[in-house]
């Protein structure tokens, strides 16, 4: 983490918030807008799907997302959700680039329907093709050090390991893996993506030195998404400042906080 407090750089683009936020699952478009604004995020994820052109709902939500992104002086981050092969993901990325006029792509290539776990082989294949085609790839991947290393070696400046499976809210399943990725890839921009459930999950990742958090369900499915968005913004700040301040080393035994010198006489032998 080399940039200033509160700001994040993605492929050379300076952002004022370290939080990237999804646009799905909110109870209403208005709540979505209020929550995104409350989060302070400048990066909003979205997707492409088949729709009946006679039903105008897709056009309306697209207009709404555009207005939000303009209001926050932000950026769209299209994803390749639903893709299971590199070929599908590459095709969808190209379609996204044309519509959204961005070469950023949140690359998802799913290998298992049960836990929506990314397919590392197809992911690497798609990443290589897209980087060669000029895309700025933000790959969603598992918390596998070697996979993250391979993605970085291919040229991904940003890597997005999962905390836990998409939409589970289980938080950081394997903190050791995530800490190791941070330690071994000090120059990569690491965004923790998927599985975040609580603001404290995000705070923990930031305390590890992660550069940012991408989430959706934890805010959209909260009882009060707007307040939860603020809570996450605060959690990221707390975690980041904790990391910058330098956490104390854990110790195996107790050490008194209160000075032991001149303790009351009745404790002395």
């Amino acid at each position, binding site marked *: 983490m080399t940039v200033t407090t509160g700001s994040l750089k993605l492929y050379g683009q300076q952002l004022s918030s370290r939080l990237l936020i*999804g646009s799905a699952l909110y109870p209403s478009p208005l709540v979505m807008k209020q929550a995104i604004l409350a989060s302070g995020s400048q990066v909003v*994820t979205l997707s492409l799907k*088949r*729709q009946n052109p006679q039903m105008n709902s897709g056009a309306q939500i697209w207009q709404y997302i555009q207005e939000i992104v303009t209001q926050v002086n932000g950026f769209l981050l299209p994803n390749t959700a639903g893709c299971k092969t590199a070929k599908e993901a590459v*095709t969808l990325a*190209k*379609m996204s680039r044309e*519509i959204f006029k961005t070469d950023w792509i949140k690359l998802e290539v799913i290998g298992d329907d049960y836990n929506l776990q990314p397919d590392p082989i197809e992911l690497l294949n798609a990443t290589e093709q897209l980087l060669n085609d000029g895309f700025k790839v933000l790959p969603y991947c598992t918390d596998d050090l070697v996979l993250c290393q391979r993605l970085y070696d291919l040229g991904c400046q940003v890597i997005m390991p999962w905390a836990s499976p*998409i939409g589970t809210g289980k938080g950081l399943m394997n903190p050791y893996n995530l800490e190791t990725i941070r330690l071994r890839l000090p120059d990569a921009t690491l965004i923790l993506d998927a599985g975040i459930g609580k603001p404290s999950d995000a705070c923990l990742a930031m305390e590890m030195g992660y550069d940012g958090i991408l989430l959706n*369900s934890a805010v959209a499915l909260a009882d009060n998404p707007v307040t939860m968005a603020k809570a996450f913004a605060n959690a990221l700040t707390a975690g980041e400042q904790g990391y910058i301040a330098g956490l104390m080393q854990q110790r195996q035994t107790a050490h008194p906080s209160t000075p032991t010198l001149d303790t009351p006489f009745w404790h002395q032998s």
Partner: protein
Amino acid sequence: MKIKINGHTFELNSELTNTLTNELENKKSIYLNDALSRYFNNQQQSTFALALNGEFVGKDDYCSTSIKANDSIDILFPIQGG
């Protein structure tokens, strides 16, 4: 001629065929733009991207990309996502 758009079968033989028939008789091709005219009420006002048989086709190529029977077209629109 039957094609698929977003998984649904379309028969290109109604009002479109009247113009296409002449073109076919002249051994001209049917282009993506012709199929899109069957699908959209107002194509110009729609935000979408297209893939033909799983391969992306850019907007600039709709008029020059020919289609044939049993081709599959995917037309995708922006939607919320995480």
